[in-house]
């Protein structure tokens, strides 16, 4: 009984500490792009396709690169290399299995300095189903390209924003109050009350029954 009590106390304290830690972090923001607009979306039927493209200026602190690749239900593996000349500065991959979304975010090691005139080599692995890519056509052709080389992709460079989740709480609470049955910021307090009730009840029944 004593060990259950201690475990519960330690684990719940740890949970609160981790929540505080997570909320002290900043959500990622778009720090820059490769200036390629989304003018075309091309369906590519087969994977295992690669392309190296001009990436423009990649800002310092970039920790993820968002690419305009859309999966129908299961996304393929997307691997990225950031190059300056022939030197690989960063590399990352998003494993296959991501779900339907019009972009895929590939984490890369944080870049310590701004890279001008960078190139990005992207490889899209084997795929179960066709996928779409967004950007502009490399050359105006009558037929749609069948691989990545025919499209200049749009890249967005993400890095942690200047504001932590704590400082975004009021705006997040305001947004939560919109577009629902009983609108208003008070809804956040209801959510907090419900989460607290769930945690308290779970802890109480654990203490009562687990001995």
């Amino acid at each position, binding site marked *: 009984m004593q060990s*259950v009590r201690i475990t519960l106390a330690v684990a719940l304290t740890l949970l609160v500490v981790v929540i505080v830690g*997570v909320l002290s972090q900043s959500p990622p923001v778009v720090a820059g792009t490769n200036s390629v607009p989304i003018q075309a979306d091309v369906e590519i039927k087969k994977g295992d396709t690669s392309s190296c493209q001009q990436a423009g200026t990649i800002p310092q602190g970039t920790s993820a690169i968002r690419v305009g690749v859309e999966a129908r239900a299961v996304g393929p593996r997307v691997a990225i290399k950031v190059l300056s000349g022939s030197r690989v500065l960063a590399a990352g991959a998003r494993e*296959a*299995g991501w779900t339907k979304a019009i972009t895929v975010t590939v*984490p890369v090691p944080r870049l310590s300095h701004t890279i001008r005139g960078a190139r990005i080599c992207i490889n899209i692995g084997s795929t*179960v189903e066709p996928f779409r890519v967004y950007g502009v056509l490399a050359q105006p052709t009558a037929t749609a390209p069948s691989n990545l080389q025919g499209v200049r992709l749009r890249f967005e460079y993400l890095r942690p924003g200047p504001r932590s989740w704590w400082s975004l709480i009021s705006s997040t609470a305001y*947004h939560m109050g919109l*577009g629902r049955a009983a609108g208003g910021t008070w*809804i956040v307090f209801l959510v907090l009350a419900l989460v607290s009730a769930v945690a308290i009840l779970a802890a109480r029944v654990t203490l009562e029954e687990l001995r």
Partner: protein
Amino acid sequence: MSKRKPTSTPVRTPTRQSTTERSVGTRAFNRKAQAARQRATRKQTRRRPRRPTSRRSFPVRELLRRIPRAAWICALVACLNAACWSIITPPFQVPDEPSHFGYTQLLAEDLRLPTSARGTYSPEESAVVHDLHQSEVEGDPNTHTISSAKEQQILQEDLDSHLSRHGEGALGGVAADPPLYPLLEIVPYGLASAGSLLDQLELMRLQSALMAGITALFVFLFVRETLPTVRWAWTVGGLAVALMPLLGFMSGSVNPDSMLFAVSAAIFYAIARAFRRGLTRRMAIAIGALTAVGLLTKLNFIGLAPGVILALIVLTVRATPTYGRRVACLSLGLALAIAASPVCLYFLVNLLSGHPGLGIVSTTLHLGKAQGSIFSKISYVWQFYLPRLPGMTSDFPGLATTRQLWFDRSVGMYGWLDTSFPVWVETVTLIPAGVIGLLFVRGVVGARSALRRHSLELIVYAVMGFGLLVLIGLSCYFNAASEGVNFAEPRYLLPLLPLLAVAFALAARGAGRRWGPTVGAALIVLLLAHDIFSQLQVIGRFYG
């Protein structure tokens, strides 16, 4: 008084005495006495069961009283958790919620069933879906829900303008769903009909949240039946399910899955109870009725049906020495007849109206157009869940289905499957999952003698699980050309929650008698953390 005297004597006296009486008295007296005896016997037989009947007249209350308090708390936790999810998740940002809402609205307003054609919702729902930017937000994690007072004002104006609630009824694939869940949702829909569409939606979501409570309650009772000697493990299993974010997310929305989870948990419990207490007629009726309700809730229940039938057969064989072959077979027949009644009715209605026997289901599942050999289907379904074996053609190139489709997605996938944790979380989760897996194996090894005793019951559960997995795999196979790998969603596996709860309970037990409760407590906090971080992830994605 004089009339009473002879009546009391034969009842109390044995047959021998009555024979002596007969030898002394006249024929008329004997006849009178015999009539009185018969009356008394009738009275007695009527009176005797009266007491148990008066007790049995409230069997539900009696049954409810026997449920432990911890089970009710688990149910309450699941309910509150799903209610919380119903508030956090923006309207119509759950798979198929607009269509399920449209289904209920069609039943309530037009008293008719939907068609499988693709069309538009009612003018009221279409306007709200448009004002909430539902289609823009769906599938794009970078687009949040409405965020300005102006957008809110436009929405409010449309909500107040009392647009028509009558739609075309062309709801696509959702039309294949049986009508029981939308019929139940008519209650909250009607209760909130004086309010706006969003009021109706929230009340409907809250009714679904109640289903989460029922799920957790039956899961608790199932664990109690399967691990009767380890009292604390019941709470571990019950709370593990109650705190599961995917259950909260799905049950906090308008989706028949919430009811399917509850019915599935109930049938697992009923079968477990029948394996321990025998297949009484009442239990057979309960299993049959639950199967019928399951079939009327969502077609995925068909996956559990072979296991249920096997359970009934095994239970009938076991009940034969106790109740006799006739009574046992009668119970079996009763259960099967009740279970099959909705399917037969559906089949009959379709045949009489000149449609294919399975109606819209035939079209949805493409049964008529099933292509490929049986081996290609087996290979596909195998690879859908497990690594490819030598000699199999790769159906999922570049994809480790076990890890990338099922494990990673189970870690967290919310909204229209467009909201997930950062990739590193999925990797880190492998550690606690591995530890739980090892503890589970230890728990199984420790309980092997008990498991051996219940091997038939385990086979039944295995068939239920296997049936569901095969059904989902085949659905994906048949629809692969049009929809891709669209059925690889962990929510489809949640009808097997009772088995998962037992696995959690066994994992805690695997830590040994001394440390079991401690590990159980740690497990509960781990799942609470999973739930809270999932909610934060959804809040960040939609409102951040």
